[in-house]
């Protein structure tokens, strides 16, 4: 057995109800703080990721709102650009990516019929490294420390870059654990084209993350070395740092962080449509193509000036619409073959898909030179138009695309938390509250992103700059609504988990009564080892096979 291989009974140290010890010789699972800190149980790690990332999400949406409020005022704070950079990086590395990794850490082993996640100790180490690095990153931005990007001092910035490197390395480690689980630990008969959509989307997202985030890490390393040991020559100059790092939160790279959203949407819609996914190969291909077209490591404006006008970049932005439309076609096909139930995960998935479609359209429009959307703040100043920005070389329009895609992915993440709530916490989260979140998230996405898209037209629309304050106010309202949605997710999630730990009733295994994939065959919450002996899987929907009396 490899050093990292551990049997489920050794690794799952959570207090899953129903776990049994037939020999009576096992050491009791630690409970309380020891059970959390020392756990290699994929469900415990997943819960920790989800809860922590939702709390970080509240912070990051708050920081983005602060920047908007500052932009409206006559006197700008020196700290506002720092709030913006922390908010933007936080949306990706403290909120979206860890939220999906948390869901995947908990759910992917169940979906592929594995007893545990690959490298459970590495997965636990990745979580704690990520959490500590996240806290360090926030601390480094404190005025007393003096770090942060866009305005920090070199002494404090060392902590910022150390934290950023820690975040990315931890998230990549967690990603490796998840991809390896899907690739190597699938149950008998589950070929790669039979894995549930969420697991497939995590493979695609993980692959793209492994190909792009190390490049971003290279940017961080270069800035760190130059700022710390150099004069600095170029990379470490405080005013130029954000321009080197911002490609990771703008299109096309921002779409990479939304890939798992497609998996959640597909799984939830098929479940609540009560139908097998038609054209499954097309949907799998659409998710893969969406990922491939999100590759953005080359789109670094600092080293590749004029990349926004490059035909490859423009074509990539336009082509990404195709997989989204293919995916939409697949979802419509699902709905046509079944009778949809309007449960909260379904509604939130629909909202996420609509926002993602809007984000893809907006991204495609960015390449249209006649609209002047690629105008940077530096170019606008030459036309006597002043817009509050952080980097003078960054088109403000891209913030709008980013905000819409982030809220779309957040809506899918929230749909996932409600959808798999019974597995994650032990009981279903309140469905009525979840339904309420769908319109909130739709409005949040529109308000958060559309104002920046409109501001992108400022070069061509006379007088639009005069309305900038109203547009910033709308964006602040959108961020506040997104934060509210997170609050209404993390609250019920913690309450449900606390109720189950306190001995409350747990949900049925197939909590929605319509499960198609293997996670719905495990207890809610899953017992240690997840499953007993599983029959051979012969289709992507093994539970439907069984319900329909076919071979499974």
């Amino acid at each position, binding site marked *: *057995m*490899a*050093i*990292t*291989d551990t049997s489920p009974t050794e690794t799952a140290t959570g207090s899953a109800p129903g776990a*049994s*010890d*037939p*020999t009576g010789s096992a050491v009791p699972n630690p409970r309380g703080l020891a059970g959390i800190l020392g756990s290699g149980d994929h469900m415990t790690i997943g819960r920790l990721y989800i809860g922590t990332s939702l709390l970080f999400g509240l912070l990051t949406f708050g920081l983005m709102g602060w920047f908007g409020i500052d932009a409206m005022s006559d006197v700008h704070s020196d700290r506002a650009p720092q709030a913006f950079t922390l908010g933007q990086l936080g949306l990706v590395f403290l909120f979206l990516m860890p939220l999906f990794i948390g869901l995947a850490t908990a759910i992917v082993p169940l979906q592929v019929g594995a*007893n545990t996640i690959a*490298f459970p100790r590495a997965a636990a180490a990745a979580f704690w490294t990520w959490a500590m690095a996240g806290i360090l990153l926030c601390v480094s931005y404190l005025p007393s420390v003096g770090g942060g990007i866009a305005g920090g001092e070199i002494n404090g910035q060392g902590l910022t870059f150390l934290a950023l490197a820690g975040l990315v390395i931890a998230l*990549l480690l967690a990603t490796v*654990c998840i*991809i*390896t689980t899907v690739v*190597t*630990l699938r149950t008998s008969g589950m070929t790669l084209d039979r894995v549930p959509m969420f697991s497939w989307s995590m493979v695609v997202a*993980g*692959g793209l993350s*492994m*190909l*792009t*985030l*190390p*490049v971003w*890490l290279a*940017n961080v*390393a*270069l800035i760190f*070395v*130059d700022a710390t040991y*150099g*004069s*600095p*020559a*170029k990379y470490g100059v405080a005013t130029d740092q954000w321009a080197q790092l911002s490609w990771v939160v703008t299109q096309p790279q921002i779409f990479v962080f939304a890939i798992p959203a497609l998996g959640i949407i597909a799984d939830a819609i098929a479940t609540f449509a009560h139908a097998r996914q038609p054209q499954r190969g097309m949907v799998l291909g659409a998710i893969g193509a969406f990922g491939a077209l999100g590759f953005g*490591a080359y789109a670094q404006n600092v*080293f*590749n000036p004029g990349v926004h006008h490059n035909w490859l970049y423009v074509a990539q932005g336009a082509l990404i619409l195709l997989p989204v439309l293919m995916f939409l076609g697949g979802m419509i096909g699902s709905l046509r073959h079944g009778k949809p139930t309007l449960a909260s995960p379904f509604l939130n998935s629909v909202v996420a898909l609509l926002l993602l479609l809007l984000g893809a359209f907006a991204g495609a429009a960015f390449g249209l030179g006649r609209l002047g959307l690629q105008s940077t703040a530096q170019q606008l100043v030459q036309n006597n138009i002043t817009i509050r920005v952080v980097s003078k070389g960054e088109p403000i329009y891209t913030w709008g695309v980013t905000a819409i895609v982030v809220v779309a992915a957040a809506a899918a993440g929230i749909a996932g938390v409600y959808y798999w709530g019974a597995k994650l916490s032990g009981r279903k989260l309140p*469905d009525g509250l979840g339904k309420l979140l769908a319109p909130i998230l739709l409005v949040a996405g529109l308000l958060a992103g559309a104002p920046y898209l409109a501001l992108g037209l400022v070069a061509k629309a006379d007088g639009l700059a005069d309305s900038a304050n109203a547009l910033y106010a709308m964006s602040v309202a959108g961020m506040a609504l997104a934060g509210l949605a997170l609050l209404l997710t993390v609250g019920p999630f913690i309450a449900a988990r606390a109720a189950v730990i306190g001995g409350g009733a747990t*949900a*049925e295994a*197939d*909590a*929605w009564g319509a499960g198609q994939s*293997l996670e719905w*065959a*495990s207890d809610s919450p*899953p*017992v240690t*080892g*997840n*499953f*007993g*002996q599983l029959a051979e899987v012969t289709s992507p929907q*093994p*539970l439907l096979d*069984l*319900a329909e009396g076919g071979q*499974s």
Partner: protein
Amino acid sequence: MAAATKVPASYAPIDEAPPPPIARPRVVIVATAFASAGCIMFFAGLIGIYLTERATVLGDSGTWLPDKSNFPLTQPNVMLLALLCSSVMVQWAVDAIRRDDRPQAFMALGLTLVFGLAVVNMAAYLFAVLNVDIATKSLVPVLVYTIAGAHILMLVGAMIFTGLMAFRALGGQFTSRQHDGVSAAAMFWHAQVVVFVFIWYAIYITK
């Protein structure tokens, strides 16, 4: 919404201890392949920036290397040769463990580590003779020290990985039927060698 249903019996968790883990299909190898890909992309990003900056400066009719700097070929060539030899050694180790030839496997793993140490030693000497001061306005020192320094760090990581696998091989954990750990270490090692080939060409040959 449909009513909650009971799970069919054949998928219901049984009230027994979970079955023993199945023979895992090369988990360590797959994970190492992804880690190696990430490592290669890290250097691809850095070398891409290096070549872009160099082309920009030379395109502006500027001088790329700082005055009085010294970029010798001898040390990088020796490093490349040592790394290529180490690649052969680590592959020899994999082959030996596949044949259950443990003495040869230990010897090959040991020689791999020796070659690794030699490269680290040569890199330290090379940095001493480069004669480039990082605290200048030139881009070259920052780029060269970041790229070469990161590669040395990664190589040390590969040595630790290989060393761990060597100790496990000493403990008898790897055989002709199960040699994933040694194979994974070899894969990561080869990735470091490939990276150095590009560094050698981009930095020390093209200058």
